[in-house]
């Protein structure tokens, strides 16, 4: 189909370097067109599949002032995850020792999974509870990542709770230390 005007040839002697004939060959090379076609196809396939959003469900507990309606958690079964700035995260088990901060541990998104799993395995399933406290500098991305960790590790009970001032102080201190040791996030001033 793409070659017209062919046929009737063959009576002339042909060899390398010898032009076939003066007869015009209308033969279109389709290769670049095919290339282009497939590049466009690849583009559309990728863009159409990558932009399909998904939804992550979240159920909020009811705010209550009444003491008997509030969710009680056992100290031994509670793991609190605190979110600082720049994807820095911290955790402590039980109740934070605000005087010394000895159980306040900095961690990162690679290690937090093992922390959660360890706590989950070492505590009674009914007592296990993860409390997530995002600080004012934390991003939506980190919050969703931590919530996602709950799904990945099949944590049945978890809650988003406001951070307290004492915890915020520890987080701020931690953020300062973290930004000091990681060269990527330390302020580089061009001079």
């Amino acid at each position: 189909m793409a070659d017209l005007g062919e046929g009737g040839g063959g009576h002339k002697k042909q060899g390398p370097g010898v032009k076939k004939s003066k007869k015009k060959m209308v033969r279109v090379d389709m290769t670049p067109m095919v290339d282009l076609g497939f590049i466009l196809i690849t583009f559309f396939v990728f863009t159409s599949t990558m932009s399909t959003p998904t939804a992550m469900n979240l159920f909020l507990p009811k705010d209550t002032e009444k003491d008997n309606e509030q969710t009680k958690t056992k100290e031994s079964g509670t793991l609190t995850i605190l979110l600082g700035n720049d994807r820095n995260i911290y955790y402590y088990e039980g109740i934070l020792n605000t005087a010394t901060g000895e159980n306040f541990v900095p961690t990162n998104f690679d290690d937090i999974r093992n922390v959660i799993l360890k706590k989950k395995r070492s505590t009674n399933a009914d007592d296990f509870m993860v409390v997530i406290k995002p600080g004012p500098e934390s991003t939506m991305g980190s919050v969703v990542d931590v919530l996602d960790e709950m799904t990945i590790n099949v944590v049945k009970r978890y809650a988003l709770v406001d951070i307290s001032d004492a915890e915020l102080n520890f987080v701020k201190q931690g953020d300062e230390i973290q930004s000091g040791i990681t060269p990527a996030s330390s302020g580089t001033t061009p001079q």
Partner: protein
Amino acid sequence: MGRPKISRKSTWVDMTAFCDVAFLLLSFFIMATKTKPPEAVSVVSPTSVSSKAPNEKDMVTVIINQNGKVFLTMSEPDRKQQVVETVAKNKGVSLSASDLAKAKNMEFFGTPITQLSSFVNLPADKIKGDLLPGIPAVDSTNNEVTDWMRAVYEVYYGETMNLFVKGDVNSKYPAFKQVVDAFKKNEMMKFSIITNSIAVPKDSELAKEAKKENAK
């Protein structure tokens, strides 16, 4: 010496059929792809392992852009008009009939309620997330998202409504918290966060559980 005879078979392949297939597929994908209009508020969604597609009907979406500005939109144009009418009435802001008709065609809402009338009359090129102030959601005393959600609650009362939060990865947590507080105040306890799907990590508890489910 005579040269060995090489059969002079042409290596020309007829690409026409190939080309036909390529463009047939191309046209198929172009038509199958839902052409999304370029969003006025650009948001990079966070990732999660959730693979559930959001219900596209009766969507009420709160958008938080990377600067923490809050916007509201609904999937049905009629609802937009009703919500704007309700929120204006609740806050004692008067809107003319033509303003309300325009509200129906707005892509989203993102100004303080008092500026609604001028917002619906903005030219299309001014309606960009970066240029608008967003719905004020600074702290609990100045949180107009609550007023909007109240209106949404009244408009959708007794009907199904799917509530979504579409937050940018880099938006700060306080904006999200104000939005969630606004939901809580209006007894909206169930909502979804729009995310991009990623694969479940291997050997995680969730992957093991899914395996068990499949084995059953």
